[in-house]
């Protein structure tokens, strides 16, 4: 707020520098979207004209006779399943753990907090390779669960953080009141605490779902012939035939991400948005 009048030139400078930087940061995403509408069959830039032909091509790849060969639909389904299971696992683990960390003092609490924050800095390549070794040593077929486990470990801190923030906003006196009135601890939690945490949990689920859906490195090490996520599909396609159809699929995943964010925002509302921030 300081001196909008006096430092008008300064805030104009900061504003325009920010605008330029944001444009640069978004340039690769913007180019992907623009190129997906090209009318040409090559990736020349700028596109000579615009059309929806590559979206039509993707539609044929997904639904046509060769759909089982291209495996596009299948990959999309696998990615959605992995993302949904990951988000579910993360919430299942985060809600009780955040309750223990926020409501109780106990020895070793800071060590637990440290351990649960570790996945943020843990290198994904190392986790992916270690899990791959463990899976091959065990000799068990885990199917998509090996990717789900890797994603759940990596993205747990995100739901933890949202749940802790949400829980801190719930007045402990409400719980005491419910208990004084004779409600059991479980009933108090389910009927009082959980509804009040709803927005924070929803944003956590959203964030983890999207991060898992787009994740590449862990999937790269843990995918199998039967479990073939969309990110791996895109990677393989880009190595074999680099056609604008890949740009159309990429643009569709970007639209898919933005669509989910807008949907959750409309359902949960602005109040919950605070948890994804800061």
């Amino acid at each position: 707020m300081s001196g909008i009048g006096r430092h008008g030139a300064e805030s104009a400078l900061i504003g325009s520098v920010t605008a330029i930087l944001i444009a640069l940061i978004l340039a690769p995403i913007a180019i992907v979207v623009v190129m997906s509408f090209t009318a040409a069959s090559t990736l020349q830039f700028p596109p000579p004209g615009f059309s929806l032909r590559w979206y039509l091509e993707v539609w044929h790849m997904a639904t046509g006779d060769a759909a089982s060969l291209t495996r596009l639909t299948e990959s999309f389904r696998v990615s959605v399943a992995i993302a949904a299971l990951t988000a579910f696992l993360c919430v299942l683990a985060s809600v009780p753990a955040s309750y223990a960390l926020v409501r109780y003092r106990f020895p070793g609490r800071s060590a637990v907090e440290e351990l649960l924050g570790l996945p943020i800095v843990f290198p994904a390549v190392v986790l992916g390779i270690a899990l791959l070794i463990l899976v091959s040593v065990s000799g068990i077929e885990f199917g998509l669960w090996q990717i789900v486990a890797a994603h759940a470990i990596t993205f747990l801190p995100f739901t933890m953080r949202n749940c802790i923030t949400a829980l801190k906003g719930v007045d402990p006196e409400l719980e005491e009141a419910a208990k004084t009135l004779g409600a059991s601890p479980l009933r108090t939690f389910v009927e009082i605490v959980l509804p009040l945490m709803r927005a924070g949990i929803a944003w956590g689920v959203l964030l983890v779902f999207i991060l898992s859906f787009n994740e590449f490195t862990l999937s790269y090490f843990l995918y199998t012939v039967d479990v073939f996520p969309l990110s791996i599909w895109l990677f393989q396609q880009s190595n074999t035939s680099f056609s604008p159809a890949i740009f159309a699929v990429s643009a569709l995943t970007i639209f898919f991400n933005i669509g989910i964010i807008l949907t959750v925002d409309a359902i949960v509302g602005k109040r919950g948005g605070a948890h994804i921030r800061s």
Partner: protein
Amino acid sequence: MTTVGTSEAAAAPLASAIASPIRRPIIWLLLPAGLLAGLLLVCTLTLLRISFGPRYAEWNGWSLAAFVEAFSPYFLSIILNTIWLALVSAVLATVVSFPIALFMVRTSSRLARDLVLICIMLPMVVGLLVQSFGWVAILGPDGLINQVAFLITGEPRTFSLLFNTTGVLLGLVQTTIPLAVLPLVSSLSVIPSDLEEAASVLGARRLQTYRHVILPMAMPGIAAGTILVFGFNTGAFVVPLLLGGSRVSTIAVIIRDQMGTLSNWPLGAALSMALIFIALSVQVAHRHMGSRSRFER
């Protein structure tokens, strides 16, 4: 127990009211998250064991050969190159983040702030795989930048930006900007505007105010952001894989090669230990940077 916040004071009576039978519930509450985090420890221990094993007999014998090889000149140069790339990208990301964070703190429009936040989060959320196609279209030999240069200078393919260090650095900075912006925003937003006014009343020019008031007070955020980006980028894999071609190697790419095609598991595991060591150092450093708790703020 040093982190006493408001909610903790409020939780105290509740905790004491049900103090006696709480020990067991806590373990059950922490169990699911503990299992996931425990798997991370199992992974680390597995690699630690393999790193001390001889090649092709990883589970049986003991050997230090992998560590000796990991610190041979060839691999040491890749380790140092990775650290160098992470360092440069961390500094660049912080420099780029500073005006963005300033804008987010100073703008009075909530919409503008939210919009900027979404814009900087988008590259991190979308992920580099999808964006790398865009990077190729921008940086490639016939990409946007070279087309523009061609229009100006008339020389085709002036810049080679793809599959070298420049392209990798751009990718590393672009995807990690939110990690640098968010800590900066939280440390800039606590600077009272009185302080800037006091400085100007006392005759400081704007640049002096920046240098002697704003910059020192933003230091915790600058340090926290730089350390986070550094830590994140020491493990860089997708960016060098997709934008570096085969010419830019990082520790993570080498680990993949050793574990995969070259099947030298102990060496891959020893290099993984180096990466884990850096990650743990980063977490410790980040903790000492004044951010009290990972989940707070």
